[in-house]
């Protein structure tokens, strides 16, 4: 292992197709038109000295180090801002250039502290600068005190307000790389250069501390800084890293590639990897900085068991814990039947870890009671897209957005939940793409610096289908559909039938206006824009799926995309933004109770027989229980044992009281996790899990990209998670054995046609591939349905709007909807154990000023939120982001009990819970809810670990 340093070409790659040939230092080179001389030189291996240039932002020409001479041209132009031209002869090293560079460098160093260890020193060495003739006696930014003993007004103290990085203004050379990174790469515009001339300096916000500014702590500025003025605190503390490993972030479904930079066994920092297909060198506050949970003191590293959930936990050996779990599961099956136990796979675990859990359920448990946490987020995506297009996955790669002309963002909040992709979207929007947002809440993308949605349709929660049907209605009735595309690629009978349905007047924007709350004129205008504005791409999140009509809505969006010809090429598509790092993968791996890997039904005899041959055991042909069905069956008494891999169902699943009743009814709950999470309070066996830094395997992101997760350090609890699952299977009588996770992937490839060409060797060679990856597409498939749909002809589905039964009334007059914020992730098990709590220490209830006023609620007061299933207490945040009548909260902290309020309602097709619509009442409160009091007691009682008596040393 060495420290990986990517080549920095200095300026971005030109997209031009015309080529230009020139000569640099006597060598001929041919590059695309528009390439800078600096980049062309680097492609020859000639690194022209530079400080302000880097290849992920436009050239700027401020540092004046990259000067070159061009025969026949006057002066010494900056090579970063000068494009190549046919036949020119460039010289990068001459006496004149050497002297100029030394002079420039000397001036920089005359106002720069002599700290040695940074790119400034390297550059001084590169240009051959031996001595700096100027001391710090004159005007400078370096010394707190001037030569005359007075305080130096130019000197600024270090800003250490951000928990992860420090800003030392004395080291800054005002090259603007940080400012440009914030603008061009991240798109937040939190930084600027304030002042003029020698007084110019980098300013966060209105010359505030970084933490007080708009900074979102993505780390792009820190990565860009060439002088160490902006530097990770972990580097300041631990020193420069020595080795690095390329791996994949374990937070959201964007699946960013990172270099884990190490010193010995310590991670010094995570740096986004330039060649990462999903992120191309960018990051967010979670992936970049919030990895400290992996070594948090709360990590449990020893297996534990207990007879009853009221007993304290007892630490035992792995053999004992695995034996205990196997014995209990087998006893339960003997007593209550084969179908009385099951398992849940985790979207946070690797494909290989997920695959073995579902295999264990099907082979060692002998049933299909396996489900995954995707059930509660994107299961409608799988259902809806497979019915219409034939594949349970998004259609595009992320890069496709670069070619998009009209973005339709529905029920997603990319800047908070998928920030790295949001930066990419914002970049395209700044280039002129149009934006339509369907969301009850005024998300940041509705209006933020240099971004303004052309249409924000603030629909009432629960009316998605009505609005999207209305969009299609307008397109059909106004004749804006893509007739040739539909005729060529879609099923004519289904289309004709659907057209008759969608044309009906009750689907018109005018008819729907009173239901959706969206002005009909805006719906009409948005429909026209999407249909006629060029490449139209739909990006959507859980605001689409987590409804009683989640699957209908996915189909309605697919209809809309087919109707306008927006599937099957670059820049278009229907793109689910997946919540967790491996939601796509966990679904692909056969985690659903009715499907094997590759989405093949357990009732398909040929497929099942193939699996029976490979796995050498008989398999059940009946679909198993889905997660909500497992809870129902547990309360009913037919389901008694559950294996939970890395999911905190007691916190994340809806109607907490129902979930906890179900968990209490189980006779054996096995939890495999990093921490004693909320579900562990109801568990009998705890298998300590591995963090992403300890895993070896793959994650599949929202664009079907299979990325390698490489082991950065050894598992803290001594075993790979897949190994634990194999041993449990063996203890239950099914011989499951692998020597490595690579062998598991080989089996996945063997039994799954869409993964047939995937292997660790190929992933290591290519970096990543997007499935389908097989003989037909050996290097993967970035864009699907090119030339035709996977199912053959695209199928328009009839998507009648059926209102949810969850409605407001005089007892529950407001609608609660839930979501995420940038700094926290899902149930917060990881991010709450990092410095990210500095941004979000508690969940709050956002409420419209009018709704607050009529209830006498002031900002910051505690309020009780009550639904028909439960109540909790949160602090109120008065905000106009919500429409009147709608309140909003996040669910990152267990004590908040956000899911105590959400109900059992679910999507008709998949049982994905209806998190996004709950009728509630909000009242002032001065105490915790009963549930919160019970939670605090349980937190103490059910998570006790038995203290072993001290044994006196002999």
């Amino acid at each position, binding site marked *: 292992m060495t420290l990986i340093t990517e080549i920095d070409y200095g300026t971005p790659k030109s997209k031009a197709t015309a080529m230009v040939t020139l000569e640099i230092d006597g060598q001929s080179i041919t590059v695309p038109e528009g390439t800078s001389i600096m980049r062309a030189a680097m492609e020859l291996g000639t690194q022209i000295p530079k400080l302000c240039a880097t290849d992920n932002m436009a050239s700027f020409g401020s540092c004046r180090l990259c000067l070159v001479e061009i025969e026949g041209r006057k002066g010494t132009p900056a090579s970063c801002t000068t494009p190549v031209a046919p036949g020119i002869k460039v010289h990068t090293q001459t006496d004149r250039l050497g002297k100029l560079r030394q002079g420039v460098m000397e001036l920089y160093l005359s106002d720069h502290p002599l700290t040695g260890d940074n790119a400034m020193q390297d550059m001084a060495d590169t240009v051959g600068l031996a001595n700096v003739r100027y001391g710090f006696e004159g005007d400078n930014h370096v010394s707190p005190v001037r030569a005359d003993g007075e305080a130096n007004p130019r000197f600024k103290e270090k800003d250490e307000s951000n928990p992860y990085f420090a800003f030392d203004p004395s080291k800054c050379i005002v090259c603007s790389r940080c400012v440009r990174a914030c603008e061009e790469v991240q798109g937040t515009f939190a930084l600027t250069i304030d002042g003029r001339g020698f007084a110019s300096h980098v300013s966060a916000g209105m010359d505030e501390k970084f933490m007080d500014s708009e900074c979102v702590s993505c780390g792009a500025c820190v990565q860009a800084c060439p002088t160490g003025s902006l530097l990770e605190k972990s580097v300041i503390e631990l020193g420069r890293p020595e080795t690095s490993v390329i791996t994949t972030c374990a937070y959201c479904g964007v699946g960013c590639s990172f270099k884990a930079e190490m010193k010995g066994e310590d991670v010094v920092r995570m740096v986004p990897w330039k060649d990462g297909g999903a992120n191309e060198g960018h990051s967010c506050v979670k992936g970049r900085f919030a990895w400290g949970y992996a070594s948090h003191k709360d990590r449990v590293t020893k297996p534990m068991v207990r007879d009853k959930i009221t007993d304290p936990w007892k630490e035992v050996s792995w053999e004992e814990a695995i034996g205990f779990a196997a014995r209990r599961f087998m006893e339960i099956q003997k007593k*209550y*039947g084969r*179908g*009385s136990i099951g398992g849940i796979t985790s979207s946070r675990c690797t494909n290989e870890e997920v695959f073995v859990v579902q295999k264990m359920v099907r082979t060692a448990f002998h049933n*299909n*009671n396996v489900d995954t946490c995707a059930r509660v987020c994107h299961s409608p995506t799988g259902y809806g897209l497979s019915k219409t297009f034939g594949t349970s996955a998004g259609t595009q790669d992320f890069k496709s957005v670069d070619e998009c002309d009209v973005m339709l963002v529905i029920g997603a909040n990319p800047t908070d939940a998928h920030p790295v992709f949001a930066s990419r979207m914002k970049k395209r929007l700044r280039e002129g793409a149009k934006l339509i947002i369907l969301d009850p809440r005024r998300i940041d993308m509705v209006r933020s610096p240099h971004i303004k949605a052309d249409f924000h349709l603030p629909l009432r929660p629960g009316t998605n289908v009505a609005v999207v049907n209305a969009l299609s209605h307008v397109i059909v009735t106004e004749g804006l559909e893509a007739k040739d595309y539909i005729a060529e690629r879609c099923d004519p009978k289904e289309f004709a039938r659907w057209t008759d*349905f969608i044309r009906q007047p009750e689907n018109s924007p005018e008819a729907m206006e009173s239901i959706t709350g969206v002005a009909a004129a805006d719906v009409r205008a948005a429909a026209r824009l999407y249909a006629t504005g060029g490449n139209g791409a739909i990006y959507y999140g859980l605001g689409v799926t987590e409804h*009683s009509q989640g*699957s*209908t809505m996915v189909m309605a969006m697919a209809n809309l995309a087919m109707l306008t010809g927006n599937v099957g090429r670059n820049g278009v598509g229907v793109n689910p933004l997946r919540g967790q790092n491996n939601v796509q993968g966990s679904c692909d791996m056969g985690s659903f*109770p*009715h499907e094997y890997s590759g989405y093949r*039904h357990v*009732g398909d005899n040929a497929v099942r027989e193939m699996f029976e041959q490979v796995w050498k055991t008989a398999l059940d042909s*009946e*679909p*198993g*229980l*889905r997660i909500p*069905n497992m809870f*129902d*069956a547990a*309360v*009913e008494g*037919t389901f008694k044992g559950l294996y939970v891999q890395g999911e905190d169902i007691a916190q994340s699943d809806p109607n907490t009281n129902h979930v906890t009743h179900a968990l209490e009814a189980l006779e054996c709950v096995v939890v495999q996790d990093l921490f004693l999470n909320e579900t562990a309070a109801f568990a009998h066996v705890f298998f300590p899990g591995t963090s992403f830094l300890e895993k070896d395997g793959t994650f599949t992101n929202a664009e079907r990209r299979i990325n390698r997760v490489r082991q950065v350090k050894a598992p803290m609890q001594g075993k790979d998670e897949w190994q634990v699952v194999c041993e449990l299977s063996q203890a239950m009588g099914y011989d499951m054995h692998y020597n490595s996770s690579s062998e598991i992937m080989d089996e996945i490839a063997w039994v799954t046609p869409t993964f047939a060409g995937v292997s660790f060797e190929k992933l290591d060679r290519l970096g990543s591939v997007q499935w389908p990856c097989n003989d037909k597409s050996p290097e993967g498939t970035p864009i699907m349905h090119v030339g035709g749909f996977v199912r053959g002809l695209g199928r328009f589905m*009839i*998507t*009648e709007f*059926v209102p949810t*039964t969850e409605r407001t009334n005089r007892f529950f007059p407001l609608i609660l909807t839930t979501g995420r914020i940038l700094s926290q992730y899902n149930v917060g098990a990881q991010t709450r154990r990092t410095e990210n709590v500095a941004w979000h220490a508690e969940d709050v209830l956002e409420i419209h000023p009018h709704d607050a006023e009529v209830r006498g609620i002031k900002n910051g007061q505690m309020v009780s939120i009550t639904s028909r299933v439960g109540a909790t207490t949160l602090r109120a945040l008065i905000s106009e982001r919500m429409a009147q009548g709608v309140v909003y909260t996040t669910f990152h902290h267990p004590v908040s009990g956000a899911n105590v309020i959400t109900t*059992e*309602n*679910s999507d*008709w*097709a*998949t*049982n994905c819970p209806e998190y996004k619509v709950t009728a509630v009442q909000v009242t002032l409160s001065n105490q915790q809810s009963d549930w919160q009091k019970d939670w605090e007691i349980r937190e103490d009682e059910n998570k006790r670990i038995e203290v072993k008596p001290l044994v006196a040393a002999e």
Partner: protein
Amino acid sequence: METRDMLRMANQIADFFKGYPREEALKEAATHFNNYWDPRMRKHLFEHLAKGGEGLDPLIIDAAPQIRKPKADAA
């Protein structure tokens, strides 16, 4: 599972397929139960039908003959 939950879920399925011509709706609804409902859930449905099917959407009652009966040892 509470019968009211089973009814809610079954009737939601009916609501979706009602948009289709009757024969197709019956077939698609039945296929949905066969593909996605675990045997004990289907057993619950059939037990409720045996008691008269109160509260069940007529489309589900009519689709029932096409829904696979679970084996006797289901659960």
